[in-house]
């Protein structure tokens, strides 16, 4: 419960007390609740950014602390297959996707964000992968799902899921990012949490078949240059994909992180265009049509084009360029106290591997190299780290990533100078967290 911006509400504290007291004897429970409620009354109004010890204490039942034997050591827990499909601990119930309701008219055609501030390593658990729907999540019976490949091909083909899963499979770890990630902040900051500034981003191990293998099965005619991918959902989402990408690293995937795709992620099968804007990775994929020209459908004209300051607009802006953000500290993860701390974050590039990440403590005046840790994979989230000392000094904390092409993540001013502030998509600017002398972290922009 430490990872919140401010203290939980009285109502939440009360609920927590009741939950925590489950399993106690009647006397223990009565005593615990009495003490707890008194504590809640004392701290309900307290803002606790930068140190949630008061809230923590209110939650902790001291009879479970040493030298006492905790309650769970004096009883038995539940047995196997009580939960045939396991769930996270009830104490992790705050680790959830969240939405910003005023971004969209309603929740069916909308977006939610991944709680990046809670994640470890580079893999996003399936239940926390950000959602983006244009017509809600369809309920598809895989036995009734078909994928048709037609158009400029020698043999138009229709596949069942069984057919698709008989091809030799490949598994790759790739990030998936909505190009609108961060797009609410071209003019200025609006979001007071990492989950909302950068949470349209996830990274999974995807398993499926190279699209190349399917296209070879159908035999693309020489005049075929583009492929229209279309979903089976009510929006029938469609995008034109250049044939080069389809023959390069595009995949038809049916699994993520070891299990079949979640319905939210396109069950039973989706397209995956590594490193490209998430919208092109059509979910619930039902049709691939090979053509000689792009289709200019709604999602590649009205949307997912980038309006410049002079009124012209960029089309087919596919690549998610090199980007990074510090995940600890961040607004949801304030610094808890003086001493040695690890500054951690994630970096990614749609053009390949991350080569280097630098960190600035002074708003970009000077920079210190950070270390990459764990796996460093092409077009995947890459974790970076810098251990340093914090003694209450205010920081303007930034990360700046460089990818293997040598591209250096730009400043927001550099992007605005070229694109203006109305392009919505592809804002991959260096991000700034302002750390106050209490350890509290705010989202700011530096110019």
């Amino acid at each position: 419960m430490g990872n919140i911006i401010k203290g939980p509400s009285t109502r939440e504290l009360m609920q927590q007390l009741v939950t925590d007291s489950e399993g106690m004897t009647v006397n223990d429970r009565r005593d615990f609740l009495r003490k707890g409620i008194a504590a809640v009354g004392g701290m309900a109004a307290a803002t606790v950014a930068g140190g949630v010890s008061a809230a923590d204490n209110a939650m902790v039942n001291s009879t479970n602390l040493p030298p006492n034997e905790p309650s769970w050591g004096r009883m038995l827990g539940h047995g196997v297959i009580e939960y045939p499909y396991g769930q996270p601990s009830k104490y992790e119930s705050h680790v959830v996707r969240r939405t910003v309701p005023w971004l969209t008219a309603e929740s069916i055609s909308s977006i939610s964000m991944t709680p990046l501030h809670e994640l470890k390593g580079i893999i996003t658990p399936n239940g926390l992968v950000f959602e983006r729907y244009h017509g809600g999540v369809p309920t598809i019976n895989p036995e009734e799902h078909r994928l048709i490949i037609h158009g400029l091909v020698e043999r138009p083909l229709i596949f069942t899921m069984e057919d698709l899963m008989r091809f030799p499979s490949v598994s790759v770890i790739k990030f998936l990012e909505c190009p609108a990630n961060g797009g609410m902040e071209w003019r200025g900051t609006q979001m007071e949490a990492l989950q909302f500034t950068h949470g349209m981003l996830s990274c999974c191990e995807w398993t499926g078949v190279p699209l190349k293998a399917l296209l070879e099965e159908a035999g693309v005619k020489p005049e075929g240059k583009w492929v229209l991918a279309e979903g089976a959902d009510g929006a029938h989402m469609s995008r034109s994909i250049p044939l080069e990408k389809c023959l390069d690293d595009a995949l038809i995937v049916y699994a993520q992180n070891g299990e079949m795709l979640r319905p939210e992620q396109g069950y039973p099968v989706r397209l995956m265009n590594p490193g490209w804007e998430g919208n092109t990775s059509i979910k619930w994929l039902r049709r691939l049509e090979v053509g000689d020209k792009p289709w200019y459908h709604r999602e590649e004209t009205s949307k997912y084009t980038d309006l410049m300051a002079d009124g012209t607009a960029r089309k087919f802006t596919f690549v998610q360029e090199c980007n990074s953000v510090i995940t600890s500290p961040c607004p949801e993860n304030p610094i808890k106290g003086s001493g040695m701390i690890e500054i951690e974050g994630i970096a990614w590039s749609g053009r390949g591997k991350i080569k280097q990440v630098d960190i600035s403590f002074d708003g970009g005046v000077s920079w210190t190299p950070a270390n990459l840790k764990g796996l460093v994979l092409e077009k995947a989230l890459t974790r970076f780290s810098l251990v340093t000392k914090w003694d209450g000094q205010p920081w303007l904390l930034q990360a700046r990533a460089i990818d293997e092409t040598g591209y250096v993540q730009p400043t927001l001013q550099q992007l605005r100078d070229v694109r203006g502030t109305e392009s919505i998509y592809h804002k991959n600017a260096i991000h700034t967290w302002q750390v106050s002398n209490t350890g509290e972290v705010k989202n700011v922009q530096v110019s």
Partner: protein
Amino acid sequence: MFKLAKPTLVAAAVAGSLVAGAVNAGEQFGLGRTATAEEIAGWDIDVRPDGMGLPVGSGSVLDGEGLYEAQCASCHGLFGEGEGRWPVLAGGQGTLADERPTKTVGSYWPYASTLYDYIYRAMPFPAPRSLTPDQTYAISAYVLYLNEIVDEDFVLTNENLADVKMPNEPNFFVDPRPDVANTRCMSDCADPAALQVTGSIGGVTPVGHFIEGADGPAASHDAQHELEKKMEMERLKELGVEVEEEEASSEPAALSEAAVAGEATYNMACVACHGAGIAGAPAVGDKAAWEARIARGMESMISNAINGYAGDNGVMPAKGGRADLSDEAVANAVAYMAESSQ
């Protein structure tokens, strides 16, 4: 389901021998079968700027007007101005270089074919793929008319759609990125005295998620609608407008067993339209909208909900488009909506 063995080495070897010497590497696995022309035709709904894919058909601006008002106006506004946060369809021409550009079909979209394609594949929002080609031509014609791209006597057909020129077409160009070249400066990269630090505008941001929990105003579209409704009432009151206070439901009417059972279905399947009352759907809680319907009896409402219903103000697709729902689940959801609206 999916309990398939991986292709064995033997199978792979057999398949391999089939392609030996073949020009196309294609038939290595021989999986899938040839799709029939009929199968493809049913799903091949896309159209392109050059007119490829357009079915034979036509629709006039005049025909489109009625269809638009019935099927589209509840979200997009009578003149394409957009209700709430739903997309604005008309106007905005000449604003793309402004401080606050208005991107609409007329001001921004490069091709008229996109209009036909999108309406046919995804509109109206609550009942995708419910329009015929002729209806789609008519609605497309009307939206073009709202944008002053065609005249009121225009008839859009598969023959002339590719000839409709959109004013903004010349202004799109292919992605030139990388378009900025930052360098890996390590020290003295900026003048510390000149740094401007700007924070966020208080109150806009959704930190309420973390303060108020999952039912806080910042956390869901429902809560957001409630909040905005309240703010609008307060604004009207300040202006001295007489507003009808919603009766404070001191004790919510007890729901029947069916209605209680139907709440979950409502939240999952019906709320998209019946929550805010879009596309002609009566909004839950809007007593006036439900009164006449309730008077016609539960049986009629349930039958319309299960089988679908085309009214003057919009279309209720069968089971709200959720064919996976049982008749009982739909009936319960109707009970929930009706009982919550009287």
